[in-house]
């Protein structure tokens, strides 16, 4: 019997490697700020029951995000592509086909039209392209998950939360005695810390609508009403 579906849970199917660290944090921050509950396969032990547990995890989530950014060959010998994410996408698609009211899935990619080549079976579905950037992930998450205007966090709020949490990442990892951010305990800590940081950021943005967002080099500028726009 499948587990009970949690209406806020999102199965996050992303690569766990250091090069993906920034986007990993961005996914956690964005989903938490939207009031969703990120869940990942981190912490699921290997062995015979692993597949059952992954399937149970997908079944317990109302949504799933599958980031197919890492389709290239892994440098570590033997050089192979990663099939785990595609495999889990297959499980999610099947589960959603059988239970369309209980599961919705999204494909995220860093490059335009690459999915059409790497996974042509998905022709007819539009992946969310994030260009491999934190801002891109935030925009695409906001496109995929829509909240009413009153409760919707803005991308500048998300960026601010992300930056604050990013600075604390090493402290959080060290406090937990972990070696990597890709550990189950750190994942939980980051979900909670993102929520705590959100409260902090929301206090900095007291109900003032942000009218204009302008990026200059790697900085984002927030312009408030009554203030002149960038020249």
């Amino acid at each position: 019997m499948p587990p009970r579906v949690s209406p806020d849970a999102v199965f996050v199917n992303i690569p766990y490697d250091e090069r993906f660290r920034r986007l990993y944090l961005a996914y956690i921050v964005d989903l938490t700020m939207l009031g969703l509950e990120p869940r990942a396969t981190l912490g699921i032990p290997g062995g015979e029951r692993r597949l059952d547990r992954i399937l149970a995890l997908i079944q317990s989530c109302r949504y799933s995000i599958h980031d197919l950014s890492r389709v290239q060959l892994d440098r570590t010998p033997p050089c192979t592509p990663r099939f785990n994410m595609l495999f889990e996408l297959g499980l999610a698609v099947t589960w959603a086909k059988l239970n369309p009211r209980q599961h919705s899935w999204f494909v995220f990619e860093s490059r335009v039209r690459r999915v059409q080549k790497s996974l042509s079976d998905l022709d007819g579905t539009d992946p969310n392209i994030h260009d491999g950037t934190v801002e891109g992930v935030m925009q695409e998450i906001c496109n995929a998950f829509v909240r009413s205007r009153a409760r919707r966090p803005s991308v500048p709020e998300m960026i601010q939360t992300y930056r604050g949490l990013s600075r604390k990442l090493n402290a959080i990892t060290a406090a937990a005695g972990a070696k990597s951010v890709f550990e189950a305990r750190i994942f939980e800590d980051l979900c909670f810390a993102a929520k705590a940081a959100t409260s902090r950021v929301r206090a900095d943005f007291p109900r003032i609508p942000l009218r204009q967002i302008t990026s200059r080099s790697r900085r984002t500028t927030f312009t408030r009403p009554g203030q002149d726009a960038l020249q």
Partner: protein
Amino acid sequence: MGRSVYITTPIPTLEEVGKRLKMSKARQQRLIEIVRGSGSGQFSVRNRDASGSLNGSSGNGSGATGDSARRKKSKRAAAS
């Protein structure tokens, strides 16, 4: 595949998130202290004024934003 979904469920509070993650109060408190604690990692709001320079760092112990803007300004003035 859902292109976009509309979420209507309420946004959980920090306490609810902690409970959902089955975290102890001590662990929650430790994380809150790390995230909200004073120091160089605090959050700051940066605004650009009409001249395009950054100002208005708030509550940031490092004060890096205002300082760097001021340094750039003085460099520009010295160059001209």
